[in-house]
């Protein structure tokens, strides 16, 4: 793929993470994550075409199955079964959230982190955008009160790191990548079960209500 196409794909992924800060529907969150994961799958597919490493194709297929198909099944199933309505938003107000997003994006593109974004100088802009996606996902997890958003934030953080690794040429051996995807699958299952447990115990996914652990 040309740099332009890669930039467009990463741009879309970046926008999905921004949208996760703004979206106020649970299904919208899942769609945003699935779009991200489709892009990650395409980036890995691109690596396969560039290297002709057959085992990478297995990684691509597993990524597609776990992050796109199963994540959609688990999360939408959860939303439907519990009839979840979007109920809570951010800790910070929307203007403040947007300011932090802007600061994070600037920081990722600044000279302070140029050592990271210049790992492969030709990929500078892609690496900076991936780094911004990583920071943005972290901010999403701490800023959102909803457990579903927090779970998707963790998965987005992982997507951001994978994107960074691809553009920095730091892909690991396929065997280990399969191990990582397996971990993600288990994480996905566990997070889904816990979200259901939180709803059953607290009647809401608002994690700011969970303040019973002081004693």
């Amino acid at each position: 793929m040309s740099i332009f196409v890669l930039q467009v794909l990463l741009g879309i992924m970046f926008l999905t993470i921004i949208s996760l800060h703004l979206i106020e529907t649970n299904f919208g969150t899942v769609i945003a994550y699935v779009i991200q994961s489709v892009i990650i799958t395409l980036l890995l597919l691109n690596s396969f075409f560039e290297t002709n490493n057959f085992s990478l194709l297995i990684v691509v297929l597993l990524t597609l199955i776990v992050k796109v198909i199963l994540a959609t099944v688990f999360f939408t199933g959860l939303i439907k079964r519990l009839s979840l309505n979007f109920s809570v938003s951010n800790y910070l107000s929307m203007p403040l959230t947007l300011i932090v997003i802007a600061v994070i994006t600037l920081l990722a593109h600044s000279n302070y982190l140029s050592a990271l974004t210049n790992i492969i100088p030709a990929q500078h802009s892609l690496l900076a955008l991936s780094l911004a996606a990583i920071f943005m996902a972290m901010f999403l997890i701490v800023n959102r009160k909803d457990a579903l958003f927090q779970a998707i934030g963790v998965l987005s953080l992982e997507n951001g790191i994978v994107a960074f690794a691809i553009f920095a040429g730091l892909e690991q051996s396929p065997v280990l990548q399969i191990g990582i995807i397996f971990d993600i699958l288990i994480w996905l299952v566990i997070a889904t079960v816990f979200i259901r447990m939180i709803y059953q115990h607290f009647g809401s996914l608002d994690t700011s209500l969970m303040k019973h652990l002081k004693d």
Partner: protein
Amino acid sequence: MAILIILVALAGAALITVLATDRRLIEGATLLAAVMALVEAVIVSQTVAALGSYDALTFFSVDSLGALLLLIIACISLATVAYSIPYLRTETAKNIISYKQVQHYYLLLNLFMMAMFLAVSSSSPIFTWISIEATTLATAFLISFYNKPTATEAAWKYLIINSIGLLLGFFGTLLYFTSIEANLTSGFISWQGLAIAATHLDPVIARIAFIFVLVGYGTKVGLAPMHTWLPDAHSKAPVPISALLSGVLLNVALMAVLRFKLITDLVIGPDFTGHLFLLFGGVSILFAALIIFTQKNYKRLLAYSSVENMGIILLGFGLGGLGALAAVFHMMYHAFIKSALFLASGTIFLNYSSTKIANVKGVLTAIPITGGLFLAGFFAITGAPPVGIFLTKLSILAIGIKTYPVSTVLVLLLMAVLFIGFLKHTSAMMFGEKPTQLVATKESVWLILPPLALLVIVLYLGFWLPPFLQILINNVAVQY
């Protein structure tokens, strides 16, 4: 082969817990797997002491630090399994848990132990990461084991905070791979390969990568200010699991940090990582000291003590030289004593049905042997002679005072605060009149033996070290 035997034994035990319908079979299989793990861990450790390392297949490689941790995991796992059997039986008899929960417990316990063994014997940083992440996944349901709102809250906090931490650690790990030539990155990168390639690592990237690794894995170690999950998780998990979490898992995560410290030091020298260790170590002790007096729950009290002790270990490694040697000893002693304390606290819980300090009085009168064990554990963990922690703390402070006199005095004061705070709570629990409604029951020898064995081992190691263990400890201290 020995590592494979450990893994196969634990996997087999896990399988039996799924298939078997007889409780005794599940307990027996888990106990047998833990015994086999200990025997094989001793064999591996002796091999490492003799040959320097133990390698099996491509994926497994055990150095001195790995071997030491293998032994610690194996010993404490066996004590935990041995304690779990009577503990869970008592809880079942009291209708606190069902048979299904017991089955889940042993399944997850076996997977948890397996993940820890994998983490310390892995030859690759990514494989180590996968294994440490697997420990999070295996233990999340153990923390929410009692299915109460507070347990779910603690487990969710644990899952999210540790997942973020481990992903940051993963990111830091990937940054170290920039030292490997591009055409090799699709291959399998080992710890050894990473150390060899360290000379090609950009010093600035090495610094950034280490910060990510320290913050990331440091979250799992329980270092302040990323420690917030630790008291919640340790207080809500079943007691034997708390013993494993506090005594063992924290050290497994610390191992990853230490390995990256070694690689970073090859690139930029030991000052940068040393100073960060001192900073995080000091802050951890400070956080623990600030919170100790206000604690209302004795399991949280023990958890905060772990934050303190991980801080002390970090100080030792940060100072280097003899400080590192003291840190290795401290790591070992803390693992055993803290596990013993948690196990003793389990028996207190079984008798008092409460983890609140205010509800627990007169333990020495009601359950004298357990009370004695808890008290002995308290004195041991706070550094009373002749237990080894006294010497390790003293050594770290003695080395620290030469280079950082003011900070060391401050740390000493914080340690004093922690001692007084811990003493205040412990004496409130141990002495006084036992509650009138408390029916004194005969203390089960099976609940006494595991913590007693752990404390005896610590006392014994304070006077005599088996030669192979001495070699391992020296190697770790020299290397790190």
